[in-house]
């Protein structure tokens, strides 16, 4: 059964520093001007954003069918999900008006604000996905399914060897049209500032993997290192994440 999630603005609003980092301008010497731009973009973001999310539990067998043939073969998620204790498909969106606002800023030649607003929305969509992941953890805790040795991590089509066209199977199970998300023939989500994927809850050890898959070379974020470290409270050596025997 699907659980619809509404987010308070405070939980999906990025900090100015996050916006500037996304713009590639973190710690810039001309920081006063940049900071004003980020603050203006965030104020506009808060006026136009309409954040919504949905999650839906899925069994291991069902997910196996959903994931089969939709990935690059040997993938981190392919190694992790068979060891999951709980799985849930999810989607979040910031709505269409924010995209319209970004477009209108560019059309008005207000390029810097348009780019800053786009960066704010990208960060905001990730914050919404993180918040939804947290809500799922709370659900596991409330239902007594969360144990102290567990960790939770989310994966999305288009990343970590999960092909973008994997969205089709995910959407047919999750049906996020209820929160206004649709999928194009090229597997593009509308509204654009949306995130979908699977949340995996498993013993922490299941999440240890090295970033040496063939597709890791093309990854521009390597954010898996921080995410794994977060599961281990930031104490794990992120250089060697192979599970110890």
């Amino acid at each position: 059964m699907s659980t619809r999630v509404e987010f308070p603005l405070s939980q999906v609003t990025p900090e100015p520093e996050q916006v500037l980092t996304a713009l590639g301008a973190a710690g810039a010497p001309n920081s006063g001007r940049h900071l004003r731009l980020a603050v203006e973009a965030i104020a506009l973001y808060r006026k136009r954003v309409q954040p919504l999310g949905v999650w839906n539990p899925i069994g291991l067998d069902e997910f196996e069918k959903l994931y089969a043939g939709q990935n690059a073969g040997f993938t981190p998620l392919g190694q992790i999900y068979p060891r999951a204790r709980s799985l849930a498909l999810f989607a979040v969106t910031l709505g269409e008006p924010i995209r319209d606002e970004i477009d209108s800023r560019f059309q008005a030649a207000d390029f810097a604000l348009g780019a800053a607003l786009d960066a704010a929305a990208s960060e905001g969509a990730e914050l919404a996905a993180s918040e939804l992941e947290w809500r799922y953890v709370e659900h596991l805790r409330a239902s007594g399914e969360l144990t102290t040795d567990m960790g939770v991590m989310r994966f999305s089509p288009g990343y970590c060897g999960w092909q973008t066209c994997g969205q089709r199977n995910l959407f047919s199970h999750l049906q996020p049209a209820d929160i206004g998300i649709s999928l194009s023939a090229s597997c593009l989500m509308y509204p654009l500032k949306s995130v979908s994927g699977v949340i995996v809850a498993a013993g922490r050890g299941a999440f240890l993997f090295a970033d040496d898959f063939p597709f890791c070379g093309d990854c521009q974020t390597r954010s898996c290192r921080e995410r794994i470290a977060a599961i281990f409270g930031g104490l794990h050596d992120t250089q060697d994440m192979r599970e110890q025997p």
Partner: protein
Amino acid sequence: MTVLAQLAERLQQGDAPGVAQLTRAAITEGVEPRVILDSGLIAGMNVVGARFKSHEIYLPDVLLAAKAMYAGMDLLKPLMIRDGIPSRGRVVMGTVQGDMHDIGKNLVSIMLRGAGFEVVDLGKDVPPERFIQAAIESNAGVIGLSALLTTTMPGMRRVVELARERQLQGKTRVIVGGAPLSREYARDIGADAYCFDGTSAVDCVKSIFGVS
């Protein structure tokens, strides 16, 4: 300091009202529109581009400077059309069919205009035939293709194939860019160049048109 030097300096500061005011002053002084463009606006943007390339300034600074450039261009454009002054070159730009991501394409278009090129922006979700048609109609020297999804990248190959079928090689080069792309992919589909970012796109287009 001459009005053109002041213009270039104000542009670097991203001062749009200042650039508009100095452009008006230069026009009133009788400076040729082409000279105002080359020695004021483009000269200023060249400094901005070089400083961005060497990581002295950041994307927001480039975009603020671009807005200032547009403020000056808005005043010069009618005069340049009246006098029949050609642009440095014409580029057809768009995000390929099925792809609605256009921030990257917009940024490249802004930087190309800032470098003095005329950009025919077809927008997003552009069918392959539309790129070819626009290039022929506008006599463009370059078609710039953008994609952010692995699922839409094949549309780039179709544009390259169509350009060959319509015998545009030699007249119109096809350049490609976008997060999931690589130099190898560009080579594989037969594109003329792969542009890693906006700065490299400007360098690439300058090289194609033989301008410094």
